């Protein structure tokens, strides 16, 4: 299983990127860290005629934080850079802690957050926490640009809402909300360094003892990272007693649609969704109380 032949472009500006893509968007793969792209080209899971590398494009690696506008993670910002960024650690600890569980030190120094999202795997570990934070992606095309909520951007395994001739220039995270409690839990039954068998990100505010703005997001248990809307609704506006939390956790279990893989069977993943959702919600409620 050798890497198949393709044309390789290393543009220095966005204009050059779009020129290289031209009308061959469907035959093009963009290259960030390549930690997903190269193995998938080698195994034949992805095919392309040309690869356009983004790492030489000036400015795409920026990580910007502004208390008013929030956090912007450029397409080429490395996982390790985001994980170690002081603003991320202070204002978005859930993202830093999720990245900490993603792959290994070596991979985190090569791979990007945006690559993790654009790869559109159900187990992308940055997706649930970024969804819980209400992140959006900025999509740039040859002529214009627009934004989409991250929740909904990933449409299926290896599929996103991006048009073939577009790229994601950055991920945008809203300004920090000091009252929003967030947590990310990831589990593999095999090793501490593994693709998730199940992951859960949860967020809520406690207002007068009631749970508000509840978000529960699950990884690896559906064709895409998913919002567990019914589970969140089971908690929204209620006092988070252990009965209510149990109900939300059971609801999440009913809501997910996992498939069996090498890490866990469908039934075990369903069970894990319940256990991890319960633990996540408990952690949120107990965490600040």
């Amino acid at each position: 299983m050798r890497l198949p032949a393709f044309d390789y472009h290393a543009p220095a500006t966005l204009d050059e990127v779009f020129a290289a893509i031209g009308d061959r968007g469907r035959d093009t793969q963009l290259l960030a860290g390549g930690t997903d792209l190269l193995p998938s080209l080698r195994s034949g899971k992805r095919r392309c005629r040309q690869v356009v590398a983004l790492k030489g494009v000036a400015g795409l690696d920026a990580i910007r934080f502004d208390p008013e506008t929030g956090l912007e993670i450029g397409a080429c910002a490395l996982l390790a850079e985001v994980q170690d960024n002081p603003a991320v650690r202070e204002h978005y600890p859930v993202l830093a802690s999720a990245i900490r569980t993603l792959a290994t030190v070596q991979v985190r120094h090569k791979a990007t957050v945006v690559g993790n999202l654009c790869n559109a795997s159900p187990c992308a570990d940055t997706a649930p926490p970024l969804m819980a934070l209400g992140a959006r992606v900025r999509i740039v095309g040859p002529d214009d640009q627009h934004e989409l909520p991250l929740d909904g951007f990933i449409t299926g395994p290896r599929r996103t809402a991006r048009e073939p001739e577009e790229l994601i220039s950055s991920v945008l995270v809203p300004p920090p909300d000091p009252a929003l409690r967030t947590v990310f839990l990831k589990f593999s039954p095999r090793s501490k360094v593994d693709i998730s068998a199940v992951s859960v990100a949860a967020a809520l505010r406690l207002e007068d003892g009631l749970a508000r703005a509840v978000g529960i997001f699950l990884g690896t248990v559906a064709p895409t990272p998913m919002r567990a809307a019914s589970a969140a609704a089971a908690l929204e506006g209620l006092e988070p007693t252990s009965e209510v939390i149990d109900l939300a956790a059971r609801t999440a279990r009913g809501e997910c649609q996992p498939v069996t893989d090498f890490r866990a069977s469908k039934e075990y993943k369903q069970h894990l969704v319940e256990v991890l959702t319960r633990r996540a919600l408990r952690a949120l409620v107990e965490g600040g109380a």
Partner: protein
Amino acid sequence: MSEARTPPAAPDPAARPVSGPPESLIGQRLPRPDARAKVTGAAIYTDDIQLPGMLYGAMLRSPVAHALIKRIDASKARALPGVKCVITGQDVPAIRYGNWRLVPELQDETVLATDKVRFIGDEVAAVAAVDKDTAEAALALIEVEYQELPAVFGVDEALADGAPAVHDEHPDNLSLRRDIDYGDLEQAFAAADYVREDTFTTHAVSHAYMEPCSALARADSDGRITLWTSTQTPYYVQCLLARTMELRENDVRVIKPAVGGGFGGKMELRPWDFCAAWMARETGRPVKFTLSREEELATGRRRHPVKITSKIAFRQDGTILGKEVTAKLDGGGYNGMGPTATFLIGNFGAMLYKVPAYRYRGIYVYTNNPPAGAMRGFGAPQALFAGEMQMNKAAEELGIDPIELRLKNAMEPGDAIPGVATIGSCGFRECLEKVRELSGWDARMAAKLPGEGLGIACYSFISGGVFNWFNTRYPFSSAEVKVFDDGTAQLTTLAADIGQGSDLILCQILAEELGLKIEDIRLVTGDTAACPQSDLGTWGSRVTLMAGNAVRDAARQVKERLAEMVSLKFDLNVIHEIACGGGHVYSKSKPSRRIPLGEAVAMAQRANRGRPLKASGYYTPRDVGLVSPAFSFGAQVADVRVDLETGLPEVQRMFTVHDCGTELNPMAVEGQLEGSIQMSLGYALSEELLMDRGRTLNATLLDYKLPVAEDMPPSVSETVETYEPEGPFGAKEAGEGLACPTAPAIAHAVHQATGYFCRELPITPVKILRHLGREI
């Protein structure tokens, strides 16, 4: 030479059995000289070697588990530009080979399939081309017409009446039997107060050595071959390559560069060794093969899956009266090292404890799975998983503490497995007592908490094998020692360091004998043309004991010559004992009568017309039973916490106390212990080659899960010092035995924590949760 470095006062360091005065190297924590090169990427492995005009090889493997080859047409592949050579089973001599030269019927492989393929991955053809892409493209152009045959994938299925025969010579798929019998078993069971029978199954796992197999061959104009290959056993490869190529053994030179691990998986001649050599001769250009990780995982050798039934008889007080073990090994398509594993499972079924009556019936069964082979422990991990799990269950039912039950039956020095082995040094009891203390066993057993448990398991292992299945006519280990007038010494040996650090240990042994420093020793190794015949290589934890003894034998002969120089120079009384130490040769009773070693060499050579001062040393075990000259022992406790909601068992700590005789280099022993724990953690919990009708489903390191650094539990260890008379400076093995107790110790701890008793490895959260009543 500084005067401050006075030679040591008596006693002579080399004569002290266990640990000597400060300048003795025995027992020193010496770091590995090759470590820096390996971690910085400077070490040269086979795949790093490039020769001018070199071609790249690739193997065509069978996509089906069992089929007749009706037709092979390689003409399109041969016509592809850049392809220099294509060979199939028709193009090369159909010579059967295998490590069991002593029993030719057991040699059941040809380098390329001739008329039949027997597993998915069986080697069918090989290509050599100007680059790897062309070689792979050519594989796709080779047309093979297979006539598929019904296939068998399980041991019981293969043994059933009317099952398709994997080898026509064995219509019942039974490749071989191994029996061990002694004592009166019927009487033992009749007299027993308590009898139990358990069946355990163990699974296939990969060696997962870091360096995939690689071979590079060059042929000279006379057709003689030089082969660089990633091997544990250069001598076997030399002999078997010569045989398959119809050459004399000395027409083949095998060179072993740095090797990135083997664990038993690199101790045979493999098809790519042959194909590289054959195609190099055909094309006149060097040819290199390097396997991919996927090939390694999907088609490589693996640990034998075994079904073991063990029946054991006790008296009420816990005394073992007798034991009956049957084992069925799933061998896959060929024998490989299976005959040895089949015997060793029987041997380890009766090790550790005094078993007065024993019956073993082991069978090796052909299936259409990828063939298994030797893997660290060579049958012992499977046998001891079954045996130790059963001991723990018996202890529970007899109401005896598991450590007490073991102490009651523990083997002692002088115990024997009749006709098979006699135990020399043995610190097993001390190991058990110390590990009880170290792990806080009694307190923890008295106050059990749900989800938490301690578990114990023990091991014994061989220090090299005695039985000469390769039928060599050379010594099992050889060494040549040369000393120079600049105060250095050279050791030349074919003993194969494959990452375990034996090069350092052998240099250490030589330096100790000659009273030199490690830096004074030069090592020439890993080349059959330069090294004395022979050394059987690295397997069965044999190198320290066997090659170590060969080194001492050679060193002592050199020492005698050097000692003569001191006697002459100082006109010493004949009763003076001469020793080496601190870089000098000196009189033990009058240490001031001394000569620097280099000067003594110069004197000896001047007196002999400059004839180099060197000696050859050998070791071949004789009269030490069938199995091994010496046995290690040890006991291990695992402290495990199980998350009762997710089912996840997490090892909190490992406690190990072991007896490897004299610890020559404690740092090297610790490395073996840590590596063993890592490997066995995977065997117990996360690793399994998942098979579907002969196809390996998880043939990537993403899907086949090895434990990583973050998974490693903290570990505490102690050694029990014994002195093994057969071993160099009292040493015996520390390489494989330690790989055996971890899985049963963890399984026992999980049993204590949850009640789940593992009869089928690996232990998984789902199995634990199901036991706890969850419907998942």
